[in-house]
């Protein structure tokens, strides 16, 4: 005895003003009667604390109720009976901007402290004697391309050097005396769908290299009064060298940005 929600698109990405389409799949061993089947799409902005350690944002915001930014509800089946076996009930919910007092859609975002999440829930009401059945699925809202920044993002590369002198944190004495030099370049601006490109060359190192990792950091910030408060969290580490690699060999930096942990497009920020 279960119901399940299946969306029409496998990637579950929908844009504002499109129709969220899908079907409710109900499987029952016997036929049951119900008091209506309803589909509800909701969107919430959460400011939450994750991971236990109290950060800046948490101290400022405290316990904040989720902010609802969207709610659409449609009855897809009026009270009646569902036969036994598998029943598929199609549904359509129009995602309209500027409805019900909500001004616009924000793109889905799963951050450490801030998240914007859209859910679609199917409810099957069965009166007081029986438990209602429900199923929830997340769907992803992505802005329309037209909402993107007008100018296409031009990849911009910057060169960088890392030596013992550029580092602020304390270094091993032999590393400090022997010295090292890492040169490279990396893109500073790119579309989130594109990988992060760059290259790095170990020109010299007094001690053997153990590993080279690229950390992808996420900065979340909110406006508190007149101040912008930011918090940085590590979302992905990508190893690009394992072991004491050859000197003067160029290594590529190639990181595919994780979609759910970042913004689908840049327009959210």
């Amino acid at each position, binding site marked *: 005895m279960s119901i399940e929600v299946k969306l029409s*698109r496998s990637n579950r990405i929908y844009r504002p003003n499109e129709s969220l389409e899908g079907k409710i799949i109900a499987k029952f061993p016997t036929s049951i009667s119900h008091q209506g089947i309803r589909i509800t799409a909701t969107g919430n902005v959460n400011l939450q604390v994750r991971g236990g350690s109290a950060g800046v944002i948490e101290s400022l915001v405290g316990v904040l109720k989720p902010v609802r930014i969207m709610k659409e509800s449609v009855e897809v089946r009026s009270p009646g009976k569902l036969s036994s076996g598998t029943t598929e009930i199609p549904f359509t919910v129009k995602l309209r901007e500027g409805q019900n007092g909500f001004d616009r859609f924000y793109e889905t975002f799963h951050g450490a402290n801030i998240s914007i999440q859209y859910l679609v829930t199917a409810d099957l009401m069965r009166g007081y004697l029986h438990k209602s059945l429900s199923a929830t699925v997340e769907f992803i809202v992505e802005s329309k391309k037209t909402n993107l920044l007008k100018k296409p993002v031009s990849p911009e590369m910057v060169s960088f050097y890392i030596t013992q002198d550029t580092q602020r944190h304390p270094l091993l004495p032999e590393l400090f005396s022997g010295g090292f030099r890492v040169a490279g370049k990396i893109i500073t601006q790119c579309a989130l769908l594109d990988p992060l490109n760059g290259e790095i060359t170990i020109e010299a190192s007094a001690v053997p290299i153990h590993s080279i990792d690229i950390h992808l950091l996420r900065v979340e910030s909110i406006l508190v009064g007149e101040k912008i408060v930011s918090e940085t969290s590590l979302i*992905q580490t990508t*190893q690009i060298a*394992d072991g004491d690699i*050859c000197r003067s060999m160029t290594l590529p930096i190639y990181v595919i940005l994780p979609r759910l942990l970042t913004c689908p497009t840049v327009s959210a920020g």
Partner: protein
Amino acid sequence: MKIREEEVAAAETREVERERERWSKTLVFFLVGKLNRNLRKKERERKMEFRVRDYEEEEATYSLYPRISTTNDHPLIICNPSSSIQVDVADCGKNDFYDPLRMPTANSEDDTTDLDVHGLLTITNLPRDENPYLSAKEWASFKRSLMQKFSGSKLVTISSISDAIIGRGKVYEISSTATHLEELDNPPKASEDGVKVITRQEFVSRLRELQDEINHSWKADNRVTSLKSSIKVARLLLDTSVSEFYPTLFIIVTEVMDILGDMVWERIKRKAEYADDGTRICSLQEKFSTSDVCSDAKETCYNWFCKIGSIHELLPRIYLELSILRCWRFLHEHPWEILQRVVMMIRGLADPLASYYCRLYMVYCAQKLLPPDTGYLITCITDMTIILRRITSEKETMSKKWVEDNVSLISLLEPPLEWTMKCICMEAYKKRQYDDIFVKLQLGRGLSNSSGTSKCISIIVHHFLKELPAELVCLHASYILQLIESANDISLNQYLNYRLLGLKLSERKPQVDYVDSVLGKVFQVITQYSRLDEYVKVVDAFLDIVLQYNMDNYLTIILDGISIRAQSKEITENELSSLQSIILKLLAHFNLVEEVLALNHFAEILHVMYGSSRDVVNMHILDKATRNGYICDPTTIQMLFEISQALHDCLDIFSVKDDHHEQQEHLISRFVQLVDYGAEMEHHLTFLVECRGAFGRISELKEVLVRSSNNLVMKEVKYANNVVDFVKSCIAFNEVTIPSIVSTTKRMNLYLETIEVALLGGLVCHADGLIHSAIDCLQSVDQSEGLILQNDSNGVLSWIRKLCSLLVIIPGNPEQGVAYYPRSILALVESQSWITPQLRLRVFCAILSLSTTLSQNKLPYHAYNTEVVGNDQLFYGDPTYHQELEALCSSVLPKVIDSVLQEPHKVIRGNLALEACSYILSAYKASSEISTICAKLIEIAKSCLNVNHKYMRNTVRYMDKQLSSILGDATTPRVST
């Protein structure tokens, strides 16, 4: 073929054979007993009496013999010399141990090179195929050879990285806390506590389990789980401490990766071709473009790359991306552009082993993208070179241990290098751009700048050379020579490169002057080699060219060089196989074995060899020697004799391999057969005696010895006069030799042959003794052997008939009486239980015929040698002589009917009765007693056979005619037809 050969060799014995042939014909003739028209006036006598016959006239009347007028017409005689040569040539091709594929090579290293050269041949011979990429089949065989090459240790030491294996598998020593700590700290790989030992088998079976898990979860739509398991599997390759096991690990892991890759590919392809509800949207062509793929499929595909992109560690990330590399085709119009990035990413793997094998997988996966250029491969090789240079150039720490470690590491790195080179050369072959490769691989750089860092790495030169087609090697030989010279490091011994160059050059025929300069340089280098092993390997490769261009000076240098280096020490297995190959090449090149044997130091080199190589070489020498007719030169004979002796001494060691064994025996026998001392027959006989002593284990040889000695007698009888002593010693030699032969058939044949030869030589005494031995020989046949002989009862019969025919000319011994031998024959057939009634009857008939013949006043034939006096002269008119014969026959006659009746088979019984009847009729004059016996026999025949049986009717008619003289007698039963 064998029969033919023997015939050629035994040309001398033909005389004997012809003689024998004639006799037996005559014998058969009168045994069959045709009608004799010249019947004397019949006398009605009760007494049985032998019929009197005039053999000369009978022969003239009935013989077929004159029709075969000249001996040359005989169908079995070879008169056309060209045909016999043809036979020899065909024989060359057929003799199977000349097959180069069967040449045993003990050296594994050698093996692989040889195999690979073959492999290359097949590749270069490949027609211009549409798809020049190495096929899946080749990849499979490559994997197999890789597994075989590194199947050393049984136990695998695993560190904490291989969690996936340890997870549920049995481990001998588990310290969970230590493992846990390691995971937290990610410490260096082999911390003392975390090292576990697991057997190879378990490791593999655990991996297979994981593979099944991946499959199952995929089928259960749990694709994320299967991806996770795949990552676990890929992580196993992080641990390079397993060293020897790494290639096997690599193969298993990549198989798992391939499975995942295929599943992903199929899934996305399905997404692109079918809608969610299963209707077909489109079908993708073999070469589809990204625009054919629907966005949904693209999305899924991209999602896979995203998932894989989020793997933290570099190595599993690369492996997984490679496994689904093909899927870039859904997203990218030019998917091969990805390759350059992947190649560079692999640079991040610092461990040589991990990075080499990762490159191998990359090269393998990249083929599926059908990349249009080899840029990525070139980068690959360059990167590999840099790593190798790092390994080979650390000269300051040249401790022995260090070198050993690195050499074993390099042997592990070799297969990926080899495969990559193969791919490059394939591509270049496709586009005919070899010159380009020379430049791109920067192999030439080492030449201009021979000091220091950018020298060529010898192993890279090696594999490059190996993949280059031979034409190109010939074209650029001097350049390649420079390359080889400049590349001298621990990665691969330089001599192997020289060897390879030699092999490649001999595949094609380069120009003479060019070859000369190349050879000059090569020999300059190799004369410096002090180790025999290196020297012979290189020399072996160049020997073909040296022989082809008849560069005798180099041949002298080579043989000198080998003998100098071989003297000092023990010869190893590797060296042996090279020496073997060198000697075989020499043997194949020269026409006559004498030329080879006469080469400087040849005997010396032969002497340092031992074991199976020595045997193989010896066999080839013997084979060569016995190909060109008789061997007359005494020194050659002496040398070959020693070689045969060496071969013979090893026979019992190799007694397991019967096939091999037989061949050696046959070769030695051939050799002994072909030895010819010409007029020095005494020497020849001494040689035969020596052979008998030396090759006691070969039974085939004994036959040859007896035949040869008989040959000698024949020659002696033909050419010289005063020969008795020599002939005597030959016959005596045979008398001693024959009893040691195991097979009764052979022994009997040889006895009969020798009896004839003895008679030709006039040695009655010896012939007498030999007949005795022959009968003894038959007498000694026991039940079990008899059963075998029984199947060939014609054989036994013909021996006895032959004996009877010989008894016609052998003078009867006055002491023992003329009937002594016939009686012993009778005793023989009656005592042996294996003799069938049929055979017995025929023997009786033969004895009857013999007796009739002996009773004639003039015998049908006499001995060739006039010193042997016939019985007709010896016993002329002696009544006891005739009485003895008659007594013999009258004892035989009743037995005839008995043995006819003993025959169980009806039809045979009938025929036998008729046969016996004819014999008796032709042997005796007509008399009532005879007619009674004949009538009995006919009665038996009638009871067994059809009335209209032709043979019976003819026999009855014949009987009527013979007995017509006593027709009037009422007592004679009249047989109606």
